[in-house]
């Protein structure tokens, strides 16, 4: 007898996780997918966001996701600042690739170690009213702990999709990666546009961090668990495609969940990266890439 309910539950859990993974990868999708900047430090901002939320949640009892939302303007500014440094040091001189990568790697390291020095290596969790409760729909259990972050993640994805497609800044961001000269001719300053985009990317990361710490405890080196996932999803989904990011995130979430349930969790993560490597080898432009 095939365990249909187990399968159904695994798929649902995977989809919920996928919603969160999409939120996690949005920043990379914009920064790497659209701006073509390989920001390896993105996961560190994810965890930085998670810790910021932890501090506020522990001190004032503020709901973690609400706290995450409140922090987004701050992280936007941080992202803009980081981009300015990156631009001034590398892009302007045309030396992006090697040194830019190393710059971000160093940044990743600094953020991770600073968190470690300040907070130590104890696992940090947040408290919220809905954690520990779940919903039952037709034999499928849905934990609020996963549902709420997933819904927020989907909302983030939709917002960004609309932003990029419908607003001036959004379309400028999409244009800047395709044709800088044309953009200039249209009266928009590419550097300014890129600053905005980078800021949005980092703000997205910090909010996704709030989602992560709601789902699971976090330590400073948790960022390494997400580096691979973020880039795998962005590449698989197709660089610069928000819809592709969502689809790829869902696929990754479901694959991880199914592997966990039926074959044992041991290989779930490795399989995801196997998918990435295969995708790179076979169809590097991803599923929905341009």
């Amino acid at each position: 007898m095939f365990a249909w309910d187990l399968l159904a539950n695994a798929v649902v859990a995977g989809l919920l996780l996928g919603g969160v993974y999409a939120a996690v990868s949005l920043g990379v999708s914009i920064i790497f997918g659209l701006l073509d900047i390989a920001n390896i430090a993105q996961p560190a901002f994810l965890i930085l966001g998670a810790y910021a939320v932890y501090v506020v949640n522990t001190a004032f009892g503020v709901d973690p996701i609400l706290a995450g939302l409140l922090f987004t303007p701050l992280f936007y500014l941080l992202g803009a600042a980081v981009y300015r440094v990156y631009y001034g040091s590398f892009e302007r001189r045309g030396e992006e690739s090697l040194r830019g990568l190393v710059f971000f790697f160093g940044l990743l390291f600094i953020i991770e170690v600073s968190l470690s020095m300040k907070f130590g290596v104890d696992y940090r969790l947040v408290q919220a009213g809905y954690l520990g409760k779940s919903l039952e729909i037709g034999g499928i259990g849905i934990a609020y702990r996963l549902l709420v972050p997933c819904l927020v993640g989907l909302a983030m994805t939709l917002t960004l999709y609309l932003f990029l497609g419908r607003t001036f800044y959004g379309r400028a961001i999409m244009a800047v990666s395709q044709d800088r000269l044309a953009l200039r001719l249209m009266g928009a300053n590419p550097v300014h546009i890129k600053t905005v985009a980078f800021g949005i990317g980092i703000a997205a990361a910090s909010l996704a961090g709030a989602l992560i710490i709601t789902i699971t405890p976090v330590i400073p080196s948790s960022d390494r668990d997400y580096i691979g996932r973020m880039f795998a999803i962005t590449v698989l989904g197709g660089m610069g495609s928000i819809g592709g990011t969502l689809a790829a995130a869902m696929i990754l979430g479901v694959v991880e969940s199914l592997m966990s349930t039926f074959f044992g969790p041991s290989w779930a993560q490795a399989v995801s990266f196997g998918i990435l490597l295969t995708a790179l080898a076979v169809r590097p432009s991803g599923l929905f890439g341009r």
Partner: protein
Amino acid sequence: MRDAPLVLLAGLVVVGLGIGIASLRVNPYLYFAGYVILQYIVIATAWNILGGYAGYVNFGTPAFFAMGAYTAVFLIQTMRPPLPVLILAGGLVSALLGLAIGYLTLRLRGTFFSIATLALSIVLQTMIINWEFVGGSRGLSVIRPSGPPFGNYVTFLFTVMVLLAVVAVSAARFIERSWVGRGLAALRDNEEAAECMGVPTLRLKLFATTVSGFLLGVAGAPFPYYVTFVEPNSAFSLDYAVNALAMPMIGGTTSWIGPVIGAVLLGSAQQLATVTISSEMNLFIVGIVLVAFVVAAPEGILGLVRRLRGR
């Protein structure tokens, strides 16, 4: 290769010095610390062949290093061959790994290669964790062979590492000055233009990843005998990834001397920090120095020296 005899002589002198220091049997701590610094000279030089010469950033240094170490572990558990065999085998396995990864991703842009190397470490670490024979997640204790030269096995490993460092640096220098090096530099500056000019970019890139992989594996092969206990977390440690990046960047990526300078400076500083201040601060400082160099002195110390000399 006009200066081959001179290089050979210089190499022999350095190895001779190493043996001399070893036979003096000075404070054993020197050999332990020295081994680590020499190991980093090999790692930094290996990384730079691909990163500095060709411009392809490898974030998966731990994967190659650990494969060298685990190949050695596997052989120790089965046949227990002598150390030179372990070193060659470790190097070959990592070379093959480099070739494979290169073949899969080098037809794409550099950033895809870098991302693939990130993923590589995780995949390999998962495989090793699930392989009970080499200890799996529990790790494996390895017993050093008895009756080593110089009386102490680590002193012997120190001299071996001196030899390996000389080999690595000579290889880097040789590549740098040959047509291979010029080809790599051309593709680093502008890959499309190089292609158009007839430079066999794919083959050169594959060559660089293979050689780089070989040297990283060679650095990792003596590791089990040095530490006597091999487990995945420390074999695949992020420290190797960061240092492999930081040392050439700080020393200077355009020449074979850069990684050596970086390895000696940064390696010594870290060894010192391990036995003086808290080592978290030590990592923090590496990060800061790395970013500072990359932003302000992108050509590393070599670049600074050149500027001072007014070139």
